């Protein structure tokens, strides 16, 4: 039994890209990603009105970390350490978290359009957070955001499930419904309670903004990304198994229900942390995993770490644009990610016409 033809004649493998054969080693990608991330941090912290240089930035950070470096003028040091570095690091952590969350959601729902934003998690988290901000529900903001994300997740999955399986298109439709409901409730809360300036603050936050980042934001987003990221990385092989759907995953020995709930709860946790520090930033989770797959291939133990690094670098630059393009006015970063993200997504969509999406 050898290669008899199973099909109508068609061009042989020669015309198809032999992608699997020569993929860049993961270690190389991670090292390059880390170098780019560090360079990004040094350069973007320097960008802005004060006229800093990346060298000064490095010296300021070095000084705070206890290295013996030439001192930086006090004002510059304060701009780096108190204002820009927390913001840039928060952006990096949030970007990494959003990319991770998007990659995991896309695999679990088998929908390339899935991300925490589209599945309603971000809106749920926003609702929870706004309730805390405006109504003054006495919960910590991240906790409320996590609770909101989790509730939205439960609602989306409950709506989307038919029988025992989750179909890709229903997941997104259900997510849309939940996200609309959460958005309406959020508007209601704001309409009912907010006064004067708090409108603008809440709006910029709903669109996603990193303007209020502090070292506390770095801690919340950073810990969430590192902890959830580490756990999710151990689930790479399980995520691979979902490529052909729930039944195929189950037939490969995966506990589909348990894996989905554990991973989605982790994504909700991550989304809660992200939204708590930066509001709901769209398109990072949607676009970055697709862009990175071209480089890493779809195996999750390669895809996830590289997507996280790429998301971090991407969001830092997006936020840098957000705070500098219309200087001194500042755009919510969510607008920048949408403006950059949608065309990238369109390109990806056209490139992959052959694949069956949806």
């Amino acid at each position, binding site marked *: *039994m*050898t*290669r*008899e*033809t*199973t*099909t*109508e004649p*068609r061009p*042989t*493998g020669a015309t*198809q*890209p*032999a*992608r*699997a*054969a020569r993929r860049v080693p993961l270690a190389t990608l991670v090292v390059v990603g880390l170098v780019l991330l560090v360079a990004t941090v040094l350069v973007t912290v320097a960008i802005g009105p004060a006229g800093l240089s990346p060298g000064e930035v490095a010296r300021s950070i070095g000084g705070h970390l206890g290295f013996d470096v030439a001192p930086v003028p006090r004002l510059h040091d304060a701009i780096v350490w108190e204002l820009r570095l927390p913001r840039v690091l928060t952006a990096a952590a949030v970007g990494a978290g959003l990319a991770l969350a998007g990659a995991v959601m896309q*695999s679990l729902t*088998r*929908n*390339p359009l899935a991300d925490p934003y589209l599945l309603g998690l971000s809106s749920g988290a926003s609702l929870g957070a706004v309730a805390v901000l405006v109504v003054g529900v006495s919960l910590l903001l991240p906790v409320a955001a996590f609770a909101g994300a989790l509730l939205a997740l439960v609602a989306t999955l409950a709506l989307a499930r038919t029988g025992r399986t989750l179909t*890709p298109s229903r997941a997104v439709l259900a997510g849309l419904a939940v996200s609309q409901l959460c958005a309406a409730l959020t508007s209601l809360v704001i309409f009912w309670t907010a006064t004067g300036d708090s409108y603008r603050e809440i709006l910029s936050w709903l669109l996603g903004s990193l303007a209020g980042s502090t070292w506390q934001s770095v801690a919340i987003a950073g810990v969430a990304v590192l902890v959830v990221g580490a756990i999710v990385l*151990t689930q*790479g*092989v*399980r995520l*691979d*198994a979902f*490529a*052909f*759907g729930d*039944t*195929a995953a*189950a*037939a*490969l*020995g*995966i*506990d589909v229900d348990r894996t989905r709930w554990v991973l989605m709860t982790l994504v909700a946790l991550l989304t809660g942390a992200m939204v708590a520090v930066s509001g709901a930033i769209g398109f990072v989770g949607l676009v970055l995993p697709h862009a990175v*797959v071209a480089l890493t*291939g*779809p*195996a999750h*133990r390669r895809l996830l770490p590289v997507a996280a690094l790429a998301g971090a670098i991407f969001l830092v630059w997006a936020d840098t644009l957000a705070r500098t393009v219309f200087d001194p006015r500042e755009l919510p970063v969510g607008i920048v990610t949408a403006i950059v993200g949608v065309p990238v997504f369109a390109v990806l969509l056209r490139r*992959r016409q*052959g*694949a*069956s*999406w*949806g």
Partner: protein
Amino acid sequence: MGLSSDAAGVDVRIVGAGTTLGGRWVVDGVDATPPAGALTGLLGPNGAGKTTLLRLVAGLLNPEAGAVLVDDSPVHALARRERARRIAFVEQESASTVPLTVREVVALGRIPFRSLWGADDDEDAVPRALRSAGAEHLADRAWSTLSGGERQRVHVARALAQQPSLLLLDEPTNHLDISAQLSLLAFVRDLRITSVAALHDLNLAAAFCEHVLVLSAGRLVAAGHPSEVLTADLVRDVYGVESDVLTHPRTGRPVIAFHEPAPDPDPTSKEPS
């Protein structure tokens, strides 16, 4: 058991297996013993319970009555990973939006053997499976560019990478051209693995299966060698279609020539669709 005559074969016994869906028994008290090391065809009209019975045998669905025993262990009691190392399941029209290459699709079959970090103790399993499924030349192709027949063959290669002792296929010949249908079933038959394939085409079953099981409304109504089971009476009773059963001039196997549907088939044998 005594049925096994081949090292690759595993003994499968379906003992009074049944399960309900929405309060109706979609598989109802099925007793069957697919022969070890051979291809068994699972036949019956739409809605007869073929897919559900395959899922019960695969351990993807727990029986509400009876059991499926593989080498005397109940399938639903096996640990998931252990089960996936013994039983491979090829779904009907399984598609993916993930940009996988053929090699990566076949590698999915190694998941039950991988450690947490993805290490596999048998690095040669994937190339071997590609080779034995005659899909080596496709290895670096993007999955999305394959034809229906190539996809099905790659799915079988993926199943072989699981090194199964029981191979289950749900309508593997659906939407394939005739050459792809014939070569796929000949290939599965020649594997000499205990295999059960749900099939719509009675003539394909007659030509390639060592044994057929015929389901109607969730019950097993006939089992045995195709030449004993596939009679004009059975086709009328189960499908409500008149036919003449001829003998293939080269293989001696039955060939069923259908007439137009019988004007007034026995209503109890018709399946609500």
